């Protein structure tokens, strides 16, 4: 997964989202250790303070916890991860429906098109 940033929003909130995506997709597995702020900041080419802020937010929502001496870990709470996964999914679907609406498709039309397209594949 590449780190990509849009221009119209704060970078830290985009970092939060992208780390969430890595957690729910399993590329950062539950219970595993997170890379250090500095390493991850360097990988994403962002300021370490910004990454720190993103980590703090992830801790606040309970996806990540820190252990005083050994670093930060992803939560082992699968239900928590599933909840976030569902939230991300409904966000994406919402965005998609909005885009389809802009093209002039109602929700029903969109759903019909989706099942048609997925059969063809």
């Amino acid at each position, binding site marked *: 997964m590449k780190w990509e940033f849009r*221009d*119209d929003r*704060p*970078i830290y909130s985009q970092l939060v989202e992208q780390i969430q995506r890595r957690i729910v997709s399993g590329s950062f597995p539950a219970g595993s250790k997170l890379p250090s702020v*500095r390493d991850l900041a360097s990988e994403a*080419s962002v*300021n370490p*303070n910004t990454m720190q802020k993103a980590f703090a937010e992830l801790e606040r929502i309970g996806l990540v916890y820190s252990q005083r001496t050994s670093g930060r870990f992803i939560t082992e709470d699968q239900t928590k991860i599933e909840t976030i996964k569902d939230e991300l999914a409904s966000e994406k679907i919402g965005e998609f429906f909005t885009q389809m609406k802009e093209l002039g498709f109602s929700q029903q039309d969109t759903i019909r098109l989706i099942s048609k397209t997925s059969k063809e594949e």
Partner: protein
Amino acid sequence: MDHILECRGVSKNYLAQIPALNFTNLTVNRGRIVGLLGPNGSGKTTLIKMASGILTPTSGSILINGVPVGPDTKNMVSYLPERTYLNDWMKVRDIIQFFTDFYQNFNPEKAYDMLGRLNINPDDRLKTMSKGTKEKVQLILVMSREADLYLLDEPIGGVDPAARDYILDTIISNYSENSTVMISTHLIYDIEKVLDDVIFINQGNLVLASSVDDIREKQGKSIDAYFREVFRC
């Protein structure tokens, strides 16, 4: 003492009538990467030169770590000038020796490590190098000092985009929480991801000082886009 840099009623006149810089007040905090942004001739270099003690303000004062700029602040500030001042007949290895002799807080291991990662041969002479490579060498020298305040005047102007990324990476991985890096540049888009704060100046006056995320949040646009809006010609 959170302020690493403080300007108190600073002004600088090159020609008597028009001040090149006229700051009532500016403070920069520790542990930040700060972009000093403004159109050509807005006073970026003047500010940096005064903070590093190369120019003296016409009035007012600049403090580094609470100490007025002077001999005592030389060791706190590591300055990358816009133009090179190094002797180009020298080998990189000799320049490193020169810096080791000259600056108490220069760390030669760090310099050699960065040179290695950029595949720059320490036995090459500066004059045989391309403009971009020379810039990289200079930046390496400046970032290898353990200073409190790094003042980088246009550090990425002459290098290709890949090297630009490397340079930014060098900056973010080499500064410590206790130091501050101030970067002046026109290439805002390339550096805004690594900045904590930005300072906009125009015609010697402070236009705005804010955190990057604040601007993105409130304006809903990148610093680059916001800059174009504020300084539209």
